[in-house]
């Protein structure tokens, strides 16, 4: 199999299967989570808590007072990584073409050099966050294999994409294939690992915010 064949396979059958597993997996997990439901609330709360869920969705994205100073690596590293990843996924012209072909939606892209810089920042942030995780006793204790797997499968698309663009290690068609394969690995694993927070993070924040803002007895 030559490099172009490999790329065609990566863009063809492999991508089809990865996308289907991803779509089925995400919907399945959402059904599973929402299907858990709660028992009917038989006790009337003392007062309503309007908007506390929505407020928490936002407030949990901002460090609580004093925490930024106490643990700057986690917060700044997290921001840099997520922002870099967001820009790379949604504002790189070739990626927008992908979304356009799947959904018909498209939006303006950023200059490639800017996306390139954001990828470098995201990769660096991932490196710093891993080092911090390994050096911090509490974080290390809390970390399991799932955390390291999530870290690795997130790093791979960024790294291979960067290397493909800069023609590093392998020739472009091969490196682009590896990049697409790494994205496919991410797509397949996302619904079934901690990476599912992509879909559940704001739902769970709303839920927590609403629940904690409630003054009453929930059965």
């Amino acid at each position, binding site marked *: 199999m030559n490099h172009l*064949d490999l790329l*065609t396979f990566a*863009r063809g059958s492999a991508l089809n299967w990865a996308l289907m597993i991803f779509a089925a997996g*995400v919907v399945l997990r959402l059904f*599973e989570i929402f299907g858990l439901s709660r028992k009917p609330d038989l006790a009337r709360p003392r007062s309503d808590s309007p908007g506390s869920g929505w407020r928490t969705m936002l407030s949990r994205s901002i460090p609580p007072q004093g925490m930024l100073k106490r643990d700057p690596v986690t917060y700044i590293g997290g921001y840099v990584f997520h922002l870099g990843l967001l820009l790379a996924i949604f504002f790189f012209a070739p990626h927008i073409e992908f979304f356009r*072909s799947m959904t018909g939606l498209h939006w303006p892209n950023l200059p*490639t050099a800017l996306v390139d810089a954001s990828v470098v920042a995201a990769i660096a942030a991932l490196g710093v966050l891993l080092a911090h995780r390994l050096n911090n006793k509490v974080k290390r204790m809390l970390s399991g294999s799932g955390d390291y797997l999530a870290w690795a499968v997130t790093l791979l698309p960024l790294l291979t994409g960067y290397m493909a663009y800069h023609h590093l290690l392998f020739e472009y068609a091969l490196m*682009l294939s590896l990049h697409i394969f790494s994205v496919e690995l991410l797509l397949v694993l996302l619904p079934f690992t901690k990476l599912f927070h992509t879909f559940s993070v704001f739902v769970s924040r709303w839920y927590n915010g609403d629940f904690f803002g409630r003054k009453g007895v929930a059965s």
Partner: protein
Amino acid sequence: MKKTQKAEVIPGSVGEGLAQRGVTRREFLKYCSSLAALLALPPSMASAMAEAISKARRQSVIWLSFQECTGCTESITRSHSPTLENLIFDLISLDYHHTLQAASGEAAEQARMQAMKDNDGKYLVIVDGSIPLGNPGYSCIAGISNHDMLVETAKGAAAIVAVGTCAAFGGLPMADPNPTGAVSVGDIIKDKPIINVPGCPPIPVVMTGVLAHFLTFGGLPEMDALGRPKSFYGDTIHDRCYRRPFYDQGKFAQSFDDEAARNGWCLFKLGCKGPVTYNACATTKWNDGTSFPIQSGHGCIGCSEPDFWDAGSFYKALSMPVSATSSMLAGAAAVGAAAGVAITWHNRSTKAAAKAAHEKVTVQDLTREVK
């Protein structure tokens, strides 16, 4: 008075042929300089090339055309005279070529046999077109199948040049579902040096450059993993494209006739395969250096790469899926939803079963443990 040194003319040599055609040594040196540059050789090699080529006997060449469209022959011959491409015909003795030779039938085959006999072990075989293995009748010449003619002719060849993507990699005839069982030259011939000069068609000067290299050095130039001469196929179209800066700036044409396309912005979004295509179009260009497809406003279709016909639509960007559709995703989501309902039902029935099995414990059920 200073004596001018005249180049020695050897009877039957290329030099003699050139002299007869009125090609001056100065013109020939210029030609060799440009060939040396194209082949990425140092400038000092130009005079060595001129020396070697002018003394060489005209190279016997047998050109075999199999499952092809004659585009490769058109490419090498459709150039304005006098050009490098025409000049190269002074360097070779084209002993057999269906399209260009006057003879036909038995006489033509006789010419091939004669050339093979006279130049055993020395002649060059150029092949354009793929070879069908499905049924010999799909393509045969004078009752001889393409396969048999290739094997027979290759036996005494010094080297084989597979010209065009069909000969080099199977090309269009090999495209899915490959109805004739087409294969490339390299799939059949394993014991001879083969150089692939792919393209649909290849650039004329790439073909002539390879021939000139063979005449000068008596061997094949440095090649890549796909057997292509590195001097012509060393870079991607994208990396040498004059529209490349627009790719880096994120400026793309959205359609073939929009303002951006007219301003020369990158054609990536319109399906250009330049980033994965190795060829010299962006540097040597076509039609006497006039232009190349991207300059004319159309994206590269990747014609010098193996299986380019089956690499998805020419008009889909490289980052687009080859065949995935939104309905495919919707179907998968429906399957996920059905599985989700089943799992939810299972979870709830487990919960309900646990609740049903739960036995209430009252104070009467409790017994004091007697010490």
